[in-house]
């Protein structure tokens, strides 16, 4: 029988929080940006406000995304930003995905 070292498969390096397609999409959309408006991410990921709110709350709780509220003129705006920790986790997750896909 072949000896399999526990934890050696790249799947173990995947971030559990990012195995959700919507959460991964939110993080991917924020990755090249300094910050983005909530509606910009919603339109890009193609989800409803409530779905995005829920997923962003989970990412914020894990420290991967920061949420800032502000105003432009009289219009309230919510900005989303990937934290440094979020960038690290996303990079690790992509590396693991590449290893699994053999890319």
């Amino acid at each position: 029988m072949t000896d399999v070292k526990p934890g050696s498969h790249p799947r173990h390096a995947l971030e559990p929080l990012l195995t959700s397609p919507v959460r991964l999409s939110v993080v991917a959309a924020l990755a090249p940006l300094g910050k983005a408006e909530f509606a910009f991410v919603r339109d890009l990921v193609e989800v409803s406000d409530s779905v995005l709110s829920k997923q962003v709350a989970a990412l914020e709780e894990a420290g991967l995304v920061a949420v800032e509220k502000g105003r432009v003129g009289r219009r309230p705006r919510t900005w989303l930003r990937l934290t440094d920790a979020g960038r690290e986790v996303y990079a690790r997750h992509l590396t693991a995905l590449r290893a699994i896909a053999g890319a």
Partner: protein
Amino acid sequence: MSEFADATEALGRSLRLEKAARRGSDWYLRYLAVFAAAQLVLVPAVLLGHDTWVMPAALGLYVVAVAGLSVYATRQRSVRRRFGVRHTVTVAVWGLLYAATLALGFTAFPDSAGFTAVAAVVCSVPLAVGAWLERRQGA
């Protein structure tokens, strides 16, 4: 679906979204392109029209352009990474070149069409380079 297919699909989706996010935030490229093109008109207007109504009109246009572009910038829905640093460097280089060309144009080369043409191009270069870098980053 296999683990391999899942990973390939997730990777592809992530890269597509990153690209779409970059494309959706290329407003700064347009901002710099407009400002670079404006130099080719405004710098000659200031250097050659200093004794006429053209110079104050050009300075007024500068104020309108900068204010308009600033409002345009604050209304954008996304900002690329390290935008603050890149914008500060671009505007600082442009500001130094603009001040230097005006100083030389008014003292060493007054009413020189040749110098004015060079000055207009020199002032537009940092903005055009900034626009090119933005475009390259968004590709």
